[in-house]
């Protein structure tokens, strides 16, 4: 145990790899730790790695220099989870809802913290009911920010798709500490001085203070939601020709939805056990607006059969509809959808296209249906 540090300028530390492991051992007494991990050979293509979130025990397991393909949302909102088990005699809820358990220390980037804020809006602040499964995990979460640095995370690799500065999510708040990967170990900044209690004795005091991205590799012009609303009313936005490009470009694979830190749609279904059809479980799984069956209705009707219409729906949600309801954009500019799309569709470029249509509508009084 070390004495609590004083002012903010004295909260920087250097930890060797060995002392990082000591730090993580201390954390694990109170937390389960989730961070990007590198799964060797488990990438989409053979002999490539998968970087996604997993529970870690030691420093070596963390992959802090690469952007994870999947976002940290799966720590709070797993791809598939059982909501309850049922039998003739009643319903049994998962222990998650009953037990407090350890805290969840999640290592993530500034855009991802904004992503969790968007999930909070949907699961906790969208109507009178809070989602108990999300809330049970969320109230235990503590953020550790992975620093991207002033040049964006480009200092640490292939981060060319980021546009957090354009989306205003390059700075975060609400984190307890900040980490920067170094050649041997980490630089650490204690935003919450209480976390000094976990520091190993050999942590070296430094002047380290975190910095944030100041510029996007390709800045994106984000349209004003009010202007977008007007363009919708004046019928220039939905009728814009560029949406039709996505009819043939998009293949409706849903990767943009699954990798997105803010896509929060799900569907539920019941499974009854073969040996005893009166017992079973209800599951919920991620659903995505680009995937077939998302809009299936009783009777077989489907909205948005065309993939361009799905792209438009997603775009409107990410940079317009959500904003009208919650006062901030849903998209946080992490660029994962651009990284994951097998057809090289750029959502950032799509936002730019929307801006151009909205601008043209504003300058011509809304009559320019052919704007691209």
């Amino acid at each position, binding site marked *: 145990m070390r004495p609590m540090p004083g002012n903010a300028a004295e909260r920087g530390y250097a930890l060797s790899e060995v002392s990082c492991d000591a730090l993580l051992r201390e954390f694990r007494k109170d937390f389960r730790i989730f961070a990007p991990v590198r*799964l*060797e*050979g*488990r*990438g*989409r*293509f*053979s*002999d490539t790695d*998968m970087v*996604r979130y997993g529970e870690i025990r030691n420093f070596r397991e963390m992959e802090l220099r690469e952007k994870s*393909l*999947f976002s940290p949302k799966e720590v709070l909102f*797993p*791809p*598939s989870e059982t909501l309850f088990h049922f039998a003739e005699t009643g319903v049994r809820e998962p222990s998650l809802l009953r037990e407090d358990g350890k805290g969840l220390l999640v290592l993530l980037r500034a855009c991802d913290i904004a992503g969790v804020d968007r999930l909070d809006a949907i699961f906790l602040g969208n109507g009178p009911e809070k989602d108990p499964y999300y809330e049970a995990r969320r109230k235990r979460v503590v953020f550790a920010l992975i620093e991207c640095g002033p040049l964006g995370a480009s200092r640490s690799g292939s981060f060319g798709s980021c546009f957090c500065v354009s989306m205003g999510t390059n700075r975060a708040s609400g984190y307890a500490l900040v980490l920067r990967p170094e050649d041997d170990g980490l630089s650490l900044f204690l935003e919450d001085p209480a976390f000094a209690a976990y520091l190993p004795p050999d942590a070296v005091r430094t002047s380290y203070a975190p910095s944030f991205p100041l510029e996007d590799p390709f800045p994106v012009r984000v349209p004003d939601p009010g202007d977008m609303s007007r363009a919708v009313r004046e019928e220039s936005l939905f009728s814009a020709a560029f949406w039709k490009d996505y009819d043939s470009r998009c293949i409706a*694979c*849903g*990767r943009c*939805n*699954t990798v997105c830190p803010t896509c929060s749609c799900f569907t539920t*279904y019941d*499974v009854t056990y073969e040996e005893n059809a009166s017992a079973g479980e209800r*599951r919920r*799984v*991620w*659903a*995505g607006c680009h*995937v*077939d069956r998302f809009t299936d209705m009783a009777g077989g009707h489907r909205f948005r059969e065309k993939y361009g219409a799905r792209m438009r729906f997603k775009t409107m949600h990410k940079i317009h509809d959500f904003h009208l309801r919650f006062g901030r954009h849903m998209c946080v500019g992490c660029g994962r959808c651009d990284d994951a799309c097998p057809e090289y569709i750029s959502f950032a470029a799509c936002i730019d296209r929307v801006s151009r249509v909205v601008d043209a509508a504003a300058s011509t009084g809304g009559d320019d249906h052919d704007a691209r």
Partner: protein
Amino acid sequence: MPRDIVRKKITKNAYRITSKRAETCLRVRVPGGHLDACLLDVVRSIAERFGDGTVHLTTRQGFEIPGIPWERMAEVNKAVRPLLEALEVPLGVTFVDLDGGYPGAGTRNISACIGNRVCPFANYDTTALAGRIEAAVFPHDFHVKIAVTGCPNDCIKAHMQDFGIIGQAMVEQDASRCIGCEACAKNCLKRVTGAISMKNNRAVRDPRRCIGCGECVLVCPTGAWSRDPRKYFRMVILGRTGKKNPRMAATFLEWADEEVVLTVLRNCYAFIDAHIDRSLPKEHLGYIVDRAGWPAFREAVLQGVSLDPPLRVAETLEFSGYFYERDRVFR
């Protein structure tokens, strides 16, 4: 001095008889079909200094350099040295005389599709495996054709070889990541073998139908499917073109690891040595097996191979092909 050439010797030195009596043609091997671009300059230089200034790109991904006067073979062999040093020595192939040209030509160049260095479908690095096969079988005088391909698309036409090696992905599912989108099941049904079906809104793989193409990994939007990083291969054997009975190769092994593949390839030479018809200038392996019998071949090439799962060995070979010999059919 009169031109007095030991034909069998020059053939083993990778030269060939040509339609022009005064000229020969050199076969250049490129194991795995991939080479540093600077080596094209070596090929070019040999063609321009000793040949007729042209180069033929062979179906086996080597070069043939035509128009070389017989008298210049010794000079050409010296000029070939940089190719041996760059393409063969690093693989572990040893040479008695690096200035003596190619020490063998019977076992043909090991050809390969472009593999996972470039192609998203490939389940392994085909060029690298071709190199390890080259080290195991070169030089050898028996006529054996081997090709390796990354996936069952078989772009290298492994089915037309004595031995075709096809990458297999042992896919594994993290069921907790399956969201029931059916992308893998739809793709497998339309493009592959329909090995994936949906049960309780989750994808289930039938291992008896799965051919290990790995496409479920490619299309899964959540990463629920991934490949076992260990590499497995299907070996198809005794495919051929030719004047008697062209046929597609038939599957001999499934889920073989690299050591099994290399052992079978090494073993085939003793079988050939024991059964080849020496009255012919050369005899293709498939015809030797037709005559000596499939059980004898199977036993010979599986010497020293441990038959542990997941390896599966064919009991019979089912060839599809035809015979040119009309009298077999028309009487």
